[in-house]
């Protein structure tokens, strides 16, 4: 089967870098390529570019410029937040997170258990919203950190960060949020929400891969993860990735200008996609919160068939989607997010994520709506569950 189509609906895994971002980066590879730590004129030009980007980022999340620390991406930012705060103190020994975090937070928390930390995972309801009562009962004077994601990468559910920080701060716990999926997509006011630390990643909102940031409010203590030179005020050693930083700045710049209109456009496409699937395929369900959800994310469970086999068929039609998070696509486990939301294993295995983005067009959605029901039909025809459960066919 060959196809002319190239429908990229995996924008929560990574986004294509915006050509305007690439254009802005280009001069920083060769012409303005010095080390920002160098005191000569070439170094100072690179330094200026880095500081300009830092300023733009601070505007996107409403923090102070000096609160932005560059990292190599979201995973490093998450690791730095969790390990960094833990290493900087020795009093509080509990870390609270949620059951639906990205592995960058979950695995890191589990790692901290080896160092004597008690890890508590807050459950979520059927829409993926964390249980605030549970959280409230779990936070205590021994709680160092509450790390709960701003929005979930698999289903798009947006968590009530303002309420989470209120609960956590009552006992003096630090609040970290993995905002990798929200940065550049929805407005973030770290100040109003009371967030202490925030992770973001360039490649999730049309910036380059290999660059991200941890925002740390003034007064929050943390130790570096990378030791070495005096970069980033001694908090993150390593020669600055200047083109990456400049690109991240540009991505923020574009987001500031276009976020609102894009959200509307993308949401309309997503709603059309869901309607197209829902009307043409029986026994499908939408995962994630019906309203409090990222505008670009559509996670559906298709009963009686399995996710990867749908993905591969979509792939043959030039449609690129995913079944949960990209990191676990090689594994056999059902999505921990969907299971935490109460889906039975079988349904969790039969789930697909379509994540739309800046470069998607209406006719691409039409193509999916046309192709998808046929794929489902074909796979259900060979499924032993379909026959068993429905008696049809």
């Amino acid at each position, binding site marked *: 089967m060959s196809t002319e189509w190239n429908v990229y609906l995996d924008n929560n895994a990574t986004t294509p870098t915006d050509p305007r971002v690439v254009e802005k980066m280009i001069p920083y590879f060769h012409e303005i390529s010095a080390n920002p730590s160098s005191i000569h004129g070439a170094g100072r030009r690179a330094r200026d570019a880095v500081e300009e980007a830092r300023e733009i980022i601070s505007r996107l999340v409403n923090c102070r410029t000096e609160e932005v620390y560059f990292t190599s991406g979201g995973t490093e930012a998450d690791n730095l937040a969790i390990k960094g705060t833990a290493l900087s103190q020795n009093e509080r020994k509990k870390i609270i997170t949620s059951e639906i975090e990205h592995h960058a937070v979950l695995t890191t928390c589990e790692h901290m258990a080896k160092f004597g930390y008690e890890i508590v995972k807050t459950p979520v309801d059927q829409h993926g919203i964390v249980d605030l009562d549970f959280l409230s009962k779990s936070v205590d004077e021994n709680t160092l950190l509450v790390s709960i994601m701003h929005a979930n990468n698999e289903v798009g559910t947006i968590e009530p960060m303002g309420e989470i920080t209120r609960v956590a701060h009552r006992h003096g716990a630090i609040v970290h949020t993995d905002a990798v999926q929200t940065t550049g997509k929805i407005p973030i006011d770290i100040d109003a929400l009371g967030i202490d630390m925030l992770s973001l990643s360039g490649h999730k909102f049309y910036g380059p891969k290999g660059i991200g940031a941890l925002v740390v409010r003034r007064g929050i203590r943390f130790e570096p993860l990378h030791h070495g030179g005096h970069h980033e005020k001694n908090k993150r050693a390593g020669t600055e990735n200047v083109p990456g930083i400049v690109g991240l700045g540009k991505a923020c710049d574009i987001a500031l200008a276009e976020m609102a209109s894009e959200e509307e456009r993308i949401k309309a496409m997503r709603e059309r996609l869901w309607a197209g699937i829902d009307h043409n395929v029986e026994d499908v369900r939408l995962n994630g919160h019906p309203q409090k959800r990222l505008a670009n994310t559509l996670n559906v469970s298709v009963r009686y068939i399995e996710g990867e086999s749908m993905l*591969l*068929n979509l792939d043959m039609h030039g449609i690129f989607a995913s079944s949960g998070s990209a990191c676990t696509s090689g594994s056999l486990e059902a999505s921990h997010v969907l299971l935490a939301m109460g889906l039975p294993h079988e349904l969790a*295995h039969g789930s697909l994520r379509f994540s739309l983005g800046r470069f998607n067009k209406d006719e691409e959605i039409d193509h999916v709506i046309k192709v998808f029901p046929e794929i489902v039909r074909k796979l259900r*025809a*060979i499924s032993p*569950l379909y026959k068993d459960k429905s008696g049809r066919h």
Partner: protein
Amino acid sequence: MQYSEKVMDHFMNPRNVGEIENADGIGTCGNPVCGDLMTFYIKIEPRTEDPDEARIADIRFKTFGCGAAIAVASMASEMAKGRTLTEISSMSRDDVANMLDGLPPVKMHCSNIGVQAIQEAVKDYLKKIGRDDLAGRIKGCPKKEN
């Protein structure tokens, strides 16, 4: 994770899909919890004097599962067709994986249950004809997956 061309061929065009009415044996392996489940239906060309020498005359399957699972079921069905029950009982997972030009490592164990499901169908047949003794010698499904 990447599938071989053979896997993709069997996945996209699975052979022997379906069911057999009044099958001589039916065998199921896997579990939707793991994300893979397959059911085989077999028709037997019997040998009353020596049931081990009976042959699989026809075979069909249905699969809930990933690309590997579907390809494994399809390939295993092709390999089993026309074979004697003795031959079936000595087939292994690796035989199927090899015929498919390999499977990604993560898929080797969970999804590669085609042979076992066919063996379950054979066991079912042997039991039906009252030869539980012979059925007992065939491996079938790995315990925890059934």
